[in-house]
């Protein structure tokens, strides 16, 4: 049996006739990978390069605007302009603050719900899993429109309920906007993160929990000491995705703006960049995009490095 097969196994086959297939394979690989690499270069790498390029130049228009504007090298001038703009700096800080508060709240909620769903005694698992996941199945824009009316002055049932209790609660006031947007994000993304964490939990062998229970470990102890450490990769992944997601915050504030005119049109960095495009200031838009990309990358990469070192220490 083994000798009969040995004559046909791949390594020997390749060794026997290396020249023709190698050349042939190269063409095949190019054929298979070509379309993706072409589109990837044109629609991923080129925009990144083009943004970097644009961020280093500035348009100069003549006073009357009669002759065509000319483009001149500006060095890091655009970066100085962007970072010197209090509105843009504010948008970066705002996103950072939302991220620092909202991401941990959302992931903790997702983790708790996933652990509860994973506990053996839980009833109606299918229903709960679907209920938590439903917000993610709604397009983000629909969720944002829905919430914008749920918090809009004069329409909000939450404000009305608070009024019944004698409270004066405006969810679109300047002070509450951050919390309102944080809630929209938590509502929309907890279920998605919970499902990733839950999938990881289900991959843990049941015997581990059984063994710990025999040893007298409580359900909480099993969850905290055994399950959570074992699903670390899923927790790291959801955190990195959440950091990136927060950095690109746009839909929620832009739609909330329709019911809350007090919301600044440079509320988040992407929002600010979009407005720069609207104002035909492409160089500034590009610069703001680069700043945001660098920050998002530094934060998610920094987080990965941080947990990696801790992982090695353990």
């Amino acid at each position, binding site marked *: 049996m083994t000798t009969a097969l040995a004559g046909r196994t791949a390594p020997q086959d390749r060794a026997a006739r290396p020249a023709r297939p190698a050349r042939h394979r190269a063409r095949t690989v190019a054929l298979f990978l070509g379309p993706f690499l072409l589109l990837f270069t044109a629609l991923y790498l080129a925009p990144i390069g083009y943004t970097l390029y644009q961020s280093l130049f500035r348009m100069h228009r003549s006073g009357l605007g009669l002759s065509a504007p000319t483009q001149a090298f500006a060095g890091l001038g655009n970066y100085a302009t962007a970072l010197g703009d209090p509105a843009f700096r504010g948008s970066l800080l705002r996103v950072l603050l939302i991220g620092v508060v909202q991401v941990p709240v959302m992931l903790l909620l997702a983790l708790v719900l996933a652990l509860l769903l994973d506990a053996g005694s839980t009833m109606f698992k299918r229903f709960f899993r679907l209920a938590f996941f*439903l917000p993610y199945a709604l397009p983000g824009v629909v969720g944002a429109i829905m919430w914008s009316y749920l918090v809009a002055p004069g329409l909000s049932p939450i404000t009305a309920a608070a009024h019944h209790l004698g409270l004066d609660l405006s969810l679109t006031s300047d002070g509450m906007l951050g919390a309102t947007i944080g809630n929209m994000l938590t509502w929309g993304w907890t279920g998605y993160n919970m499902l990733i964490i839950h999938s990881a939990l289900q991959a843990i062998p049941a015997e581990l929990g059984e063994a710990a229970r025999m040893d007298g470990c409580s359900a909480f102890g099993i969850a905290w000491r055994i399950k959570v450490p074992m699903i670390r990769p899923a927790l790291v992944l959801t955190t990195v995705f959440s950091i990136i997601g927060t950095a690109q915050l746009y839909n929620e504030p832009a739609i909330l703006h329709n019911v809350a005119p007090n919301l600044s049109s440079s509320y988040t960095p992407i929002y600010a960049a979009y407005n720069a495009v609207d104002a035909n200031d492409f160089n500034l838009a590009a610069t703001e995009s680069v700043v945001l990309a660098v920050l998002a990358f530094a934060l998610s990469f920094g987080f990965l490095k941080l947990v990696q070192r801790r992982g090695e220490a353990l």
Partner: protein
Amino acid sequence: MSTTTHTRTHTRTHTNTARTARYQASRWLTLGVLLIASVYFLAPVWWLLVASTKTSSGLFAGNGFWFGDFALADNLRDVFTRQGGIYWQWLGNSAVYAVGGAAGSTLISAMAGYALAKYRFRGRELTFNGVLAAVLVPQPLLAVPLYLMFSELHLVNSYWAVLLPSTVSPFGVYLARIYAAASVPDELIEAGRIDGAGEFRIFATIGLRVMSPALVTVFLFQFVAIWTNYLLPVLMLADDHLQPVTVGVVGWQAQRALGPGAPPLNIVVTAAMVSAIPLVVLFLSLQRFWRAGLTAGSVK
């Protein structure tokens, strides 16, 4: 810890009743927490459903979470006939972008993932690492530079402006590679070669068939990503006859700030609700494939 040692000193029956009581208590506590959470997640959607059945004035009166004057049929008629029935066109555009983009990107991802998994060549690791890094690039960050590039190429305000960027899915390539490496046996490919089949024919007859569950997942993810995308189409498409339904509905909502002639609130709500139905149906009917994709993301 102390409670367990304490109960151990008691007789066996005592231990069991204490355990059962504690077990029952934690069971009810778990159920309570999960119920509260599901109210938080479901109540807003219920509000949306109820609101889409109300008249404009009914929205501002009475209980937001229960039905008033039932005007769903009128609302739907208004949504689908307003501006010469443009809502139909928006839905059609969304379908064109989502089906076209997802089909294109699934085929391209399948080919690339299969090549990365099944052939050895120089630059293979580099390419795959590039794909992985691209998964981490926030898509909206690309939207602004893409708009700038496309406007220089005079591609803005065309179907291609949204379709082309939708055909690239690094996550799809990642998923296709993982799945091809795990499930397409080398022996089968080798057997095909011995039978004299060309490489592309082997891919089309063996590779695609074995990879089909993963490809359904890739298609779904991309379909949903395109259907829900807002920033890219709103930048690219000024002509409202080219816009997908997300951009159209937000456009109606934004008009309301501009005053008379704008669609009333109940129409915006109904339009938003209807635009979500295709996705919710897709999610509920194809749950298996969803979870397959999410699991693949969590076990790197």
